[in-house]
Structures are given as structure tokens and as C-alpha cells.
């Protein structure tokens, strides 16, 4: 029951974040969505994710506020209101039709299939020695995922440093 209330709160905050005109208020509203997501992870018995989502949301909020603060917050006027809205709604309806067929095939809420995870839970402690099963999955059974994640993070850092370079090499000469 509390999960549905929390999801409705997240939807409300997301609508506020999308529709409000002030950019700073919008960023703060998306922070509310993230904190609600952190609480939802806690209810869904995922404490690792709750901690990670909480701290990541704080850093994400700081970075986004850094991008919007001290900028001229001009209102962006929309031209061709009708055409844009109708085409967007058609796109979303197409997506929803596809999602309907997918939702029919899903297992019911609360009854996961767990064909792979059964082995991880049964042999996790004796194979790895870690009592936190999630850690044993990401660092022992499926460590290639983590290797790929580290690579993506490294690439993103290099990308940010390249974009944020003070003067381009061509202009410096």
C-alpha cells in the first residue's frame, strides 16, 4: 500500500518537474523524484540501491543546480503547439500499445521467476565468502558488468574533461 502512495508521489513530482517554468524549481522537483525512488528501493528490500540512489541523487542535484544557477532563465516560447503535442501523444500511444503486449507476458508482482538467482543465493556464501549477495554478484559472479561500468565511467570523465577544456587547441595558437 505504501508503495503505491510513494509511486503516486513520484508521478506528481515528475509532472511538476516537467511542467513548471522556472528551471531551478524543476531541478529541485526532480530531486524529489529521486529521493522518493530511494525510499521505494528501501520498501522493495534493496538497501544497497537505497544508499547508492540517495548519495547519487545529492551529487546529481548539485551538478544540475550548478548548470542552471546564474543563468538567464528566459521562458522558452513554443511555436506550433498543436502539431508538437499531437505528434508527441501519438508517439506515446504507440509506445503504450507495445507496452501492453509486454505487460501481459510479465510475471505477477511479488512472484519473480529467479531461475538464475536461485544458484547465486544457494551457493553465494560458500563460493565467494561474502554475506552480501549483491556484492558477491557484482564482484564475483558477474564481474564483467562491473568492468564495463568502470570503463563507461572512465570514458564519461574523459568526455567531461574534454568538453570543459578552457581554450581549444586551435584557438590558443
Amino acid at each position, binding site marked *: 500500500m505504501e508503495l503505491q502512495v510513494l509511486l503516486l508521489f513520484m508521478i506528481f513530482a515528475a509532472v511538476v518537474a516537467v511542467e513548471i517554468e522556472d528551471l531551478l524549481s524543476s531541478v529541485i522537483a526532480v530531486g524529489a523524484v529521486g529521493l522518493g525512488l530511494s525510499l521505494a528501493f528501501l520498501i522493495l528490500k534493496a*538497501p*544497497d540501491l537505497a544508499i547508492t540512489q540517495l*548519495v547519487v541523487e545529492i551529487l546529481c542535484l548539485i551538478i544540475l543546480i550548478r548548470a542552471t544557477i546564474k543563468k538567464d532563465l528566459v521562458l522558452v516560447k513554443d511555436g506550433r503547439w498543436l502539431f508538437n503535442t499531437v505528434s508527441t501523444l501519438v508517439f506515446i500511444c504507440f509506445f503504450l500499445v507495445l507496452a501492453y503486449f509486454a505487460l501481459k507476458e510479465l510475471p505477477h508482482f511479488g512472484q519473480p521467476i529467479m531461475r538464475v538467482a536461485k544458484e547465486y543465493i544457494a551457493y553465494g556464501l560458500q563460493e565467494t565468502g561474502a554475506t552480501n549477495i549483491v*556484492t558477491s554478484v557484482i*564482484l564475483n559472479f558477474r564481474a*564483467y558488468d562491473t*568492468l564495463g561500468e568502470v570503463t563507461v*565511467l572512465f570514458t564519461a570523465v574523459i568526455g*567531461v574533461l574534454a568538453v570543459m577544456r*578552457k581554450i581549444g587547441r586551435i584557438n590558443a595558437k
Partner: protein
Amino acid sequence: MQNKEPGMTLIVKTITRLTVGLILLYGIYIVLHGHLTPGGGFAGGVIIALSFVHLMLAFGKEFALKRLSQAAIAISESLGAIMFLAIALLGLVVGGYFFFNFLSKGRPFELFSAGIIPWCNIAISLKVGAGLFAIFTALILFSEARQER
């Protein structure tokens, strides 16, 4: 009131001086106990990065960069990546396949157990913490360079 010093007011600086060590300590705790309790390298790395971000927001960029210079950020980020790869390759050398858990498992529910997992956690936390702090530093330095122009 014109405040000549960089950073925020005296109240914020005093509170920061009291809390930043605790935040850093909590991050290190989360990393080291990643295989026993919720947490791990990702969350702990982000908390370590947040402690330095906290320092930079309160005291200005010179103070924080004196504590952790840009060269140190670059070194620790590369060190994290190389350490992670080296652990994986050592598994290849010792046990015959990539990411082989070659250290002794130890007894469960103790700090030094689970073989390579705590070392991998330390490597990932170095990588994540230094990487995110580098991103934040780049954003701060860019916006200040633009204001000078």
C-alpha cells in the same frame, strides 16, 4: 556585507569543519564493509567524493584543491582502474580465468573475508570517487574561468 574570503559564511565553515571528517569516515566504512552490509564500492566512492565536494562548496576551490590536488585526483582515478584490472589479471595468472577469486575466503561475517571482493571494492571506490570529483572540479573551474572573461 562584503566577504573577502572565498566560500560561504562563518557558520557554514564551522559546521563543515566538524562534519567533513565524519562524512569521509562514513564513506570509508561503507567501502570496507561492502561485502558484509549494504553499501559497497559505488556508494562509498560517491560519499567520499561528496565529502570533498562539501569542502569545496564551503571553503572555495583553492582550499579543497590544496587538500586533494588535481594531480592526486588523476593518479587515484588511474590507480583505481589499474588496480581493478590487475586483480582480474592476477586471477587469470593464478587460477586460470579472469576474475578468479584466488585469495582465501576466510571465515564469513568477518572483515577480512571473501577473498578479492574487499580489494575490488577499494579499487572501485577510488575510481568512482576520484572520477566524480574530477567532473565536479571541471564544472566549477569552467564556470569561474567564464566569469573572469
